[in-house]
């Protein structure tokens, strides 16, 4: 697997650390209540097709990246910096 880092270009997946679903970017407000935090911490869509996920380029530019990847074929589609993804969502 090769991952297209927005800063470093296409790099070997061994340079990256996998964190999990990109829903972790959407932390509920502190007063959102227990149910919202339960959903945030524990519940995962776990799709068979396209998954939006967080990768950390720890042997490279040390940026957090949001990647869209097919979890059955391991094919990567869009990648962007997590900070941009978060700004874009607002």
């Amino acid at each position, binding site marked *: 697997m090769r991952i297209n880092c927005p800063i470093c270009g296409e790099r070997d997946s061994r340079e990256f650390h996998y964190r999990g679903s990109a829903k972790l970017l959407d932390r509920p407000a502190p007063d959102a209540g227990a149910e919202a935090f339960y959903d945030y911490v524990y519940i995962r869509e776990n799709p068979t097709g396209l998954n939006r996920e967080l990768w950390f380029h720890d042997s490279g530019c040390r940026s957090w990246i949001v990647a869209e990847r097919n979890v059955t*074929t391991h094919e990567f589609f869009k990648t962007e910096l997590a900070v941009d993804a978060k700004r874009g969502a607002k």
Partner: protein
Amino acid sequence: MRYSALQVFLNGLTGNKNWKPVWRNPEPKSHYDVIIIGGGGHGLSTAYYLAAKYGITNVAVLERGYLGGGNVGRNTTIVRANYFLEGNSQFYSHSLKMWESLEQELNYNVMLSQRGQVILGHSDGQVDSLARRGNMMRMQGDDAELWSREETKRQLPYLNHDDPRFPVYGALMHWRGGTARHDAVAWGFARGADMRGVDLIQNCEVKGFRIENGKVLGVETSRGYIGAGKVGMTVAGRTSQVGEMAGLRLPIESHVLQAFVTEGLKPIMPHVVSFGMGHFYLSQSDKGGLVFGGDLDMYNSYAQRGNLPMVEHVAEAGMALMPMIGKAKMLRSWGGIMDMSMDGTPIIDKTHIDGFFLNCGWCYGGFKAVPASGDCFAHLISTGNHHKAADKFLLSRFETGHVIDETGNGATPNLH
């Protein structure tokens, strides 16, 4: 037919022409008291215990592919009861006791080999934690023996004990642990269930559920609608998809775990050995191949194959632990899809849907759990109450904070 030495002898006299197929291949009926989704180890053992122990024989097992074609045929066949935490400890203890009489129970040779399972310690701190784990195992009533550095060297002379980075300081031996023939476990439970009237229906994919007023009425399948009094799902690896059809949102991620086997070798290692450095464990199969595995590939995956970086990582761990493994040729590697729960512990529970039961989240420890999982799930389905060995495996534990996190990694499924 009951298997015995006499049957082998008599059938030998008649040219082995009279052996019969071990299970039927029935058409689905229109209604069953209980439908189990998933014809792997857990589904087949659940069906078996429903019929054999809890008296429910109008049961169907629906399998999308063929019996035992998933993770029960893809694991590294290790059986053990060396868990630490309340909840896990009693469950795996129950399971190991069931393994010890499983062949008599099923009248089927599952080739259980209690050859002992060793975990190595590579620092004083790690040996202390092994001593603590050993004490917990003994308090549960299972066996554990702490080995000194010298004893470990004497027992396992083929390892690299003086690796400068990870020297072996000691080990914890669990003599009742070992291996079993994984396919035979599936076949034995399938045969036992079929003999008691359970319909094992293969090539039958579940497409949806009929649920009315909060109660499950039946299952839509690729072979038509089948009514059911109760439905249990044992589809680890695909839990999120099947659960979604019933409106369940679950604390599960699917990850790929690889396993490896070398060419057949003469007997060199009599035990199952786990490297304490990372996730690496190996044993020698009865055919002589060294069977080993390591970490998950770490990213979500539904591909039943892994990638090369993890092959390299596992090979490196093997070389560090046992340099002579480098002389052996790796014959095959394969992958299975693990149902990784958010605390590394399985779920055996009811759901908010009346008559719909959940068995999932086995991470990479499902094989050793097969007998107890079936027993406890059948107990839950038939009585509506949790079996005392599995009464902590609740779906609600994540919401209430009663997680059972053996590794202490928190909600990071790929690290459990």
